[in-house]
């Protein structure tokens, strides 16, 4: 059937990848017109065309908990299971932020903890605005880095229970991950240096006055 997972798909976390989306949400997605009309027979390639047209990210919304188009495409990706390289290509592209978010969210659902940190953390440097559909059916402004942070630290996002990953701290302790270097560190250090030189000069001036 049109909703069946690809025959050659690997199991994810021990089950059918589509099971990552909860049963109720999944069935609601299967019933949407967007799924039946636009998501039919999508490949990882043609999915890009649909993802480019996305207007918002989000889980379900409204009184009937209608799934967003973003959610439909996530389920589609779980169904066709694109290769890891393709997902990395999605994440790496800089022109389309919703394609990037799709890739990142899929990576968070499917990837191993180390991969998740490896591919998602660079997105902390992407400050672009994102529209998020809230539960009440209203739009909310968010940013790519904000959502990536939520993906890495929260248990639930977009009505999906995220698979558990060890915290960054734990991975650092076992030596699997290096300490994260923020691009802001440099700026911060410079600011600190400036402040220090400033205080040093002041102190010197004070000392001169005393003499």
């Amino acid at each position, binding site marked *: 059937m*049109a909703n069946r997972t690809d*025959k050659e798909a690997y199991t994810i976390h021990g089950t059918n990848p589509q099971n990552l989306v909860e049963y109720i949400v999944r069935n609601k997605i299967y*019933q949407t017109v967007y799924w039946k009309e636009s998501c*039919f*027979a999508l490949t*990882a390639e043609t999915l*890009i065309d649909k993802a*480019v047209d996305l207007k918002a990210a989000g889980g379900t919304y409204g009184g009937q908990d209608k799934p967003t188009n973003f959610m439909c495409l996530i389920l589609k990706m779980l169904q066709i299971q694109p*290769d890891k390289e393709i997902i990395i290509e999605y994440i790496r592209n800089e022109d389309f932020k919703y394609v990037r978010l799709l890739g990142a969210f899929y990576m968070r659902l499917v990837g191993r903890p180390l991969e998740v940190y490896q591919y998602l953390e660079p997105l902390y440097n992407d400050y672009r605005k994102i529209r998020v559909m809230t539960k009440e059916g209203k739009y909310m402004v968010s940013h790519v880095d904000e959502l990536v942070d939520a993906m890495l630290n929260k248990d639930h996002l977009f009505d999906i229970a995220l698979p558990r990953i060890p915290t960054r701290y734990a991975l650092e302790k076992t030596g699997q991950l290096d300490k994260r270097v923020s691009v802001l560190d440099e700026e911060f250090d410079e600011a600190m240096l400036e402040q220090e030189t400033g205080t040093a000069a002041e102190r010197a001036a004070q000392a001169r006055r005393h003499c």
Partner: protein
Amino acid sequence: MQGPEEKEAEKDGETALDIRKRKRLERDPLHQGLIVQRSHLKGREYQIDLAARLGKTQVVGVNMPLNQQAGYYCSVCDCILRDSQSYLDHINGKWHNRALGMTMRVEKSTVDQVRKRLEENKKKKEEKNDDDYLPDGIDRRILEAEQAEERAQEEKRTRKLEKKQKERQQREEEETEGADADMMAVMGFGGFGTTKK
């Protein structure tokens, strides 16, 4: 749909299910030997218009051919679906796509294809010039539509004016034609102007 099938079943001793199965096989190009292998599932290239027959009046009878009955008609499988949801389910379904010679599996796309598609989309995005989008977010099409409406109104106005002018001319002609000039001269008046001087 059930009616004629049941009648057929009585004739041949086949159940309705058997008939349905037989017809499915008849439609399947692989089973008919027309193709060697089913192709990958491909998406529809056309947009489905679910509201095509909305608001239309139609005479519906039980004994009419299926494509004239109420609902959505699938010409591939020669069947009728009563609502849009079941129609969509049908055209996404296994039997329909088998009749089109396709399996239910999509092609695995490669990284290169994905890269190329992303490039294409980028180009398309860049090609969209700024005229398409006015700063306050109004699509150019809205502007064009407004202009077209204005033009239509202008045309209407000119047509009205022309019509009026034509009518006036006709009336004048009728007036002059209706009375014979010679006769009028004989009767002592040349027109409807005043004779006072």
